[in-house]
Structure formats: structure tokens, C-alpha cells
């Protein structure tokens, strides 16, 4: 058993809340307060310009002159323009290296939509208990969707991935609200429809089956270094980790020398937190191939 471990969940929730707060507060502070007044503004009487050092959302964010870019935004840009803009390379290095080494931790640790969907999952569990859940089977279309969008980006020369990135859609909603004082039907409908489907039907439908950004990040993090590891001697086969996994990956299979779907695992650490004997832990290093 050993000493009491620090739950990954607490740190993860803290980070997610910070990102969500940033997504709401950045457009709030960058709005022009004079736009709320009904009178017109001509060049003569102008509002004081607001200068905020932080701007952007999860797709591209700047702290002063230091810019960070989502790795898929970089891929999207290259595919659609068929060229490389050199300042982008500097902006993408840190996120890209983190994704290559640590897998798609963006989905579990940063994505604000993932956070909302995770909370929504609790409603789904409740509905399952009451008997208000109508689930259906659906295949994993993430990679198909990702490929289709990349092909579209290549042939129509538009960065198509950016349109289907849910955290970006959410951030754009708040920007619409605070800078234009309106709600765009596009993003709101998208978010509401998937919240409803995930509450009453398939658990984590978007993250699990459809998200093209998640698919792209999975492919980028296929050869990652950070993985969960199961200690076979400690495992008591209680099955709690199987219930906890949001993607139904069944981590208990690891104790029986069977592989889980590593592409889908996003290192959220829920199985590690829930394990009563601390058999599951994070492990830095290449995955060992399990011989059959």
C-alpha cells in the first residue's frame, strides 16, 4: 500500500479550471466597453484602448510576444498552404514535443470541452441508474474524420481542422458573447446537441468516437514515453479501474498480459487514482511489447 498517493484528478481539475477561466476571461477583458453604449463612435471621441498581454485560446495563445500554437493548427497550416511560415515553428516546438513525449495530454489535462463532457458523464451515469439512457453502438470514426478534414484542407486550401475543434468552438462562443454581444447558433447548437446526446445516450460520444482533433493528437502521441503501467503482483482484480476509465479501455487486461487500445488512452490517470492497492502508476519510458 505504501504512503497515500496524490490524486492526479485534483491537479487535472485545477489545470482544467484555469484553462476554462482563461477562455472566459480573455475575451471579457479584451472587449471594448464602449461598444455597449448605443451612441456612435467617431474618430474624435474614442475609448481608451485596452491592452491585455494574454490573447488567444487553446488553438493559439500569446503571452506578450511569446506565442504557443496547437500542434494540429501547425499541421493544418502546412497542409492548407503547402508552405511553412518560419515563426510558426518556434511557436509549435513546445506543444509538439510535449505531445510526442506525453501523448494526447491536451485532451485530458487542458481541453475545456473535455472538462465539460467529463462533468456531463456524471449525468449520463445518473441517467443510466434511473433508466433514462438509450445507448447505441458506434464505431471509432476519429481517424476517418481526421483524414477527411486533412484531405479537405489540402484540396480546398482551407484549414478545416480548426472548424471542428471543440475547445476552439467554445472559446469562439465566449468571444462572440463578449465582443459582439451575440450568441452564434453554430457553436451553441453544436455544444448543446453533444451535451444532450452524451447525457442521455452514448457515453463520451464526441471524445471517444468522433473528435478529429483527438484523433490527430492520438496519432502524434502514438510513440509516447508516458504511459500507465500495471503491477501484476499487486493487482487484486477488483475491476474498479475498468469502471473508472472514461473510454472503456479496461486497464485490468494489463494484469492478464493483454494490450489495451494505447492510441485511445489519454493519460488522464483516473484508473491510477481509483486503484485501491496502487497497482497502476504512471511510467516514463518506452512501452514494453507484451509477448503473446
Amino acid at each position, binding site marked *: 500500500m505504501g504512503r497515500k498517493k496524490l490524486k492526479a484528478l485534483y491537479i487535472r481539475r485545477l489545470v482544467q479550471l484555469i484553462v476554462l477561466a482563461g477562455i472566459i476571461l480573455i475575451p471579457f477583458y479584451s472587449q*471594448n466597453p464602449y*461598444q455597449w453604449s448605443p451612441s456612435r*463612435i467617431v*474618430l474624435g471621441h474614442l475609448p481608451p484602448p485596452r491592452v491585455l498581454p494574454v490573447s488567444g485560446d487553446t488553438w493559439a495563445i500569446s503571452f506578450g510576444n511569446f506565442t504557443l500554437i496547437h500542434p494540429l493548427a501547425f499541421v493544418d497550416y502546412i497542409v492548407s498552404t503547402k508552405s511553412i511560415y518560419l515563426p510558426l515553428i518556434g*511557436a509549435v516546438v513546445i506543444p509538439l514535443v510535449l505531445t510526442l513525449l506525453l501523448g494526447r495530454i491536451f485532451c485530458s489535462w487542458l481541453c475545456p470541452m473535455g472538462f465539460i463532457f467529463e462533468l456531463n458523464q456524471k449525468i449520463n451515469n445518473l441517467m443510466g441508474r434511473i433508466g433514462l439512457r438509450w445507448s447505441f453502438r458506434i464505431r471509432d470514426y476519429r481517424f476517418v474524420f481526421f483524414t477527411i478534414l486533412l484531405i479537405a484542407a489540402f484540396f480546398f486550401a*482551407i484549414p478545416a481542422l*480548426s472548424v471542428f475543434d471543440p475547445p476552439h468552438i467554445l472559446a*469562439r462562443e465566449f468571444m462572440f458573447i463578449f465582443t459582439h454581444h451575440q450568441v452564434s447558433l453554430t457553436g451553441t447548437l453544436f455544444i448543446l446537441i453533444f451535451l444532450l446526446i452524451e447525457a442521455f445516450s452514448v457515453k463520451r460520444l464526441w471524445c471517444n468516437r468522433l473528435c478529429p482533433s483527438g484523433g490527430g493528437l492520438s496519432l502524434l502521441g502514438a510513440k509516447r514515453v508516458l504511459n500507465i503501467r500495471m503491477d501484476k503482483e499487486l493487482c487484486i482484480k477488483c475491476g474498479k479501474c475498468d469502471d473508472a476509465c472514461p473510454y472503456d479501455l479496461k486497464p485490468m487486461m494489463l494484469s492478464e498480459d493483454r494490450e489495451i487500445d494505447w492510441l485511445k488512452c489519454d493519460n488522464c490517470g483516473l484508473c491510477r487514482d481509483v486503484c485501491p492497492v496502487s497497482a497502476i502508476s504512471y511510467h516514463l519510458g518506452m512501452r514494453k511489447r507484451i509477448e503473446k
Partner: protein
Amino acid sequence: MMLQLLRSKDTKPYSIRATRREFLKQLGGFFALGILPFRTERRVILRPPGATRDFLQRCIRCGKCIEACPYDSIRALDITAGASIYTPYIDPLETPCYLCLQRGPDGIDRPISKYLRCGDACPTGALKRIRNTRKVLEHLPDELKIGVSKIDRRLCLSWQYDSCGECYYNCPLKDKALRDRPPNEIIKVGTGVRPYVDPDYCTGCGMCNYVCPVKERIARSYMDRSIKLTYFEERYAAMVRNVIGSAGGRVRLPAIKVERIV
């Protein structure tokens, strides 16, 4: 005299005479203006200053230019724009581009930042970074040119009445892009401020489009009494109606319009 009579507010709702007079007035207005004689230009969508030719390829729709804009002139397109959803645009009739300038009490426009802020914020180079000094703005680099203004002289109050000059006084490149005399002549024509656009210097920021009083709202207020005009609009209201009435045909408002280039 006639106009004052038309605009008088002493009509009594309970008097048949008054309601008939009101009805005739509306009927007269209807014929004078014709059925829908004016149309607002199909929404002109300008790209932010510094937009390159391959703007749609390069823009990753991150929305940072929208957050950087100090006047919230830049907005994002929605799903009705199809594939260019979430790309930034400027609607000059809503809010024009102020070219990151601030006019002081002495009437001189001063830059509020070192670079035009949208281009400075753009991470992918879809918007070029342009230094925000008066010298650069007057030199007019090709990237800065997002449109060009055109004046409809049949509708322009200054051309018809010698009295308006709103676009001239509010132009950020006053005496350069918008002039009170023809670009190549030294002698003033007429007595008032008759605006001329110099297409070599007009950036297409849309400020003239924004301040032009020949607006659909003012024209409609003749028939629709529920529209409340501000003091500024009231000043030009009678002239606007007359100008639209005399221009006839299906004219497009306002009198000065921006045409998109990029």
C-alpha cells in the same frame, strides 16, 4: 416650409382631418420615394488591414486579431459564410477600421500602438505586420489596402447641397485619401466641402461609409414614425429624404461606399 409642415407633430389622433392628413402624408411619401427606392449595399465584408491575397489559406481562425482590435471593429463570420466560417471581417456600416489611431483634442490623429494590432497579433502571417505611423499609412503599402471608397454624387449631400462634409472630417487620412478638391486640381470647386476620393491613397477603412448620413434608417424614418432619430441624424434627415427622392430609381445607400479589394 413644406418640409416643416411635413414634420410637424401637432397632429391630433382623435381628429379625422388629422388622421387623413397623416395618411395623405404617408401616401405622398410613399410615392415620392417610390416602392423601396433605396437598397443598402449587400453587406460589404472587408478583411482586416494587412490581409494577404492567400488570406483564407493562411488564416487558422484563432481569433486573436478579434481580441487584439482596440475598437472591436473586427468580427468573425458564422456558418452562413460556409467554408470561411470563423474568419475575421470588418463591416464598415457596423464599426469601421480606425487604423489604430486616436484623435486628440487638437484634432490630430495619433497612433495608439507601434504596429496595427491585428497584424501584430496574427501568428501565421495571414495579416501582415504594418508599422503604425502616419508616414507609413500615407505611403500606403499594398498590404494595407483593403478596399477603396466610391462616392455616389447623386446621393451625396455635399454634392447636392454644399453642407455635409462628415466623411471628409472623419477620414483618418484627411487631405490625403479624402480631399475637399479634386486630387489633381488646386482650385476649389464650389463653396462647400465637396469630397473627392483619391484612390491612390484610400485604404478602404470604411470610416466614411460609417459616418455618411445618407442611411437607410434616416430615409425610412419618413414613413416609419417609430424610428427615433438622434440630434446628428435629425440635422440631415430632411436633406437625406429629398436627395433620395430626387435621385429616383433604385439607388444604393449610403452615398459613399467601400468596395472590397482583398
